C-alpha cells in the first residue's frame, strides 16, 4: 500500500509553502510555459544562460503541492550547472518518478524526495511538469509544454 508520507515529504510541503526562486526574471535568455490542463497546474519558467551554464533560473506558477514544490526544488538543483548536467538531471528525475530507476540519492540530492511519486500514478505528471518545461526552455522550443499533447 502506498504511503502518504512518502508522497508529501516534509521538504515537499515546505517548498510548496515557500517556493524558492519564485519570481519574474529580468532579461532571461529563455522562457517556457508548461501546463497540465487536466489538473490546472501551470508554470512559467525563466532561464538565464551564460555560455553553457544555467546561470540563473526562476519560475512562477499555480497548482498542486507536488507541481509547485517540484518546480522550486528543480530551480535549486540546476542553478549554476552546465546545461548538459541539467539535462542529465531531467532524465534521472523522470526515470525516478516513473519508476524506471530507483532514486539515486547521490545524483539527485534533495530531488530524491520525489521518489514516492511513482506510487501515485495520477501525480507523476504534476512532478514532471517543471522538468518538461525546463527541457523545452533549454531546447528553445517556443510552443507551450502540455502534459496532454
Amino acid at each position, binding site marked *: 500500500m*502506498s504511503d*502518504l508520507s512518502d508522497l*508529501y515529504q516534509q521538504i515537499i*510541503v515546505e517548498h510548496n*509553502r515557500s517556493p524558492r526562486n519564485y519570481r519574474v526574471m529580468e532579461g532571461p535568455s529563455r522562457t517556457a510555459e508548461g501546463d497540465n490542463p487536466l489538473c*490546472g497546474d501551470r508554470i512559467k519558467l525563466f532561464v538565464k544562460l551564460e555560455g553553457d551554464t544555467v546561470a540563473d533560473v526562476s519560475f512562477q506558477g*499555480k*497548482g498542486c503541492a507536488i507541481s509547485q514544490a517540484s518546480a522550486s526544488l528543480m530551480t535549486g538543483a540546476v542553478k549554476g550547472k552546465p546545461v548538459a548536467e541539467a539535462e542529465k538531471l531531467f532524465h534521472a528525475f523522470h526515470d525516478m518518478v516513473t519508476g524506471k530507476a530507483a532514486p539515486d540519492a547521490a545524483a539527485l540530492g534533495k530531488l530524491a524526495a520525489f521518489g514516492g511519486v511513482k506510487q501515485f500514478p495520477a501525480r507523476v505528471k504534476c512532478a514532471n511538469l517543471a522538468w518538461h518545461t525546463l527541457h523545452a526552455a533549454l531546447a528553445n522550443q517556443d510552443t507551450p509544454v502540455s502534459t496532454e499533447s
Partner: protein
Amino acid sequence: MTSTAGRPAAPAFDVERYRDDFPILRTTMRGRPLVYLDNGATSQKPQSVIDATTSYYAEQNANVHRGVYQLSENATLAYEGVRAKAAQFLGARDPREVVFVRGTTEGINLVAASYGRAQLRPGDEVVVTAMEHHSNIVPWQLVCDERGAKLKVIPMNQRGELLLDQAAKLITPRTRIVAAVHISNSLGTINPVRELVAMAREHGARVLLDGAQAAPHMPIDVQALGCDFYTVSGHKMFGPTGIGLLWGRAELLDSMGPYQGGGDMIRSVTFEKTTYAAIPARFEAGTPNMAGVAGLGAAIDYLAALPWPAVHEHESRLLETATARLSEIPGVSIVGTAEHKAPVVSFVMDGVHAHDIGTIVDQEGVAIRTGHHCTQPVMDFFAIPATSRASFAFYNTMDDVDLLVRAVRKVREVFG
C-alpha cells in the same frame, strides 16, 4: 431523523436495504470499504441494471427494426418498450417524443445542430447560464459561430444562484433558445427553471434543460417544467454508460432535420434523393445501443420504485451534515451555497490544491472528484483553479459523511 419545518417527516429511508442492490458498494478500496462520493461524475449500478444488460446479450441480442425473424422482433419490442417507459418517466405525452442518445452531451448537440442550425439567423441570440457544464456551452458556441448568432450568459451571485432580474433583461425578442442546467454539477444549485421557461415564453424562445444531474435526485415531469427539450444521461441515473434520453415536443422534433445520416433514419434512399424517417427514428441513425437501452429500462424501473419523499429527506440530511461538518475544518470554504441545492458539496481549502486533497482522501478509501468539473467558467467566477466535490446519491450514508470529514481533516494534518 430531522425534517424541514412545516413539512411532515417522511418515513425513514432504509438506506441499508437499498445499498444491498449495488454490488460495488460491497467492495473495498485500499483495504477499506469503498466510500463512493463521486456520483455527480457517474453513479453506481444496481444488480437489476447489470442483469438487464447481461441478459440482453445472453438471451435477446438481435438487431432492432430489421429482421422479420422472432428474435429480432423481440428485440424491437423490448427496445420500443423502454422508449414507452422512458416517455412515462419523463412525463412525455407520446413515446415518439423520446430519442435515444449517447447521453446528455449528445442530446444537446443534437438540438444545437438540428434545431439550432435551422432556426438561428445572424443577430439571433442563444442564452445560457453562468453555471453550465462545457457540454451546454460548446455546442451553442459552434452553432452561434456558424450562424452569426450571439451567445449570452445569465450571471449568478456568490452563492451560485442565477440572477433572475438579469435574466429578464437578457432574454429578448431576439432570443431563439434558452439552454440551462436544471441542477449544477459543480455547485449543486437547483435552478428556478420554471421562471426561466416563463421568461422565454414571453418572447417565443424555446427552452432546453440539461437534466443530467436532476434525474438521479428527483422525479422529472417535462409538462410541469414547461420546457421544450429535456435531456438526461443513463449512467448518472444508475443506468449504463453510453445511453441517454432526449425528450422534445413532437411538433418541434417533426420540424427538425436529421442529426446524423445512416441506416434506420431513412424512409427511402436513392443516389438522387433520400427521404427521412418519421420521429424518433429520424434521429437514431445506425444500430443503436440496444444493451444500453435494456439497462436504462431497468434503471427507470428502479428510480420509479424509490420512495421519493424519504429519499429527499435522506439526501437533505447528507447535504446539511456534510456542509456543516466540512465547514468546521479550519480553512475550508464551501463553493455553492444556494438555498435550493442537490446533495453536492464543492469545497476549497486555504493553501491546499484540490488534487492534493483528492490524493489524500483517496488514501482513506474516499472517492471524490477534484478539478474544474467541466465548468471552467464557474471556477473563473469564483477565482479558483479547482474544487474538491463530494456528490451524494441515495445509497450514501452518514458513515460516508463521517469518513469524508475524517479524510479531509487528514489533509489539514499533512499540510499543517
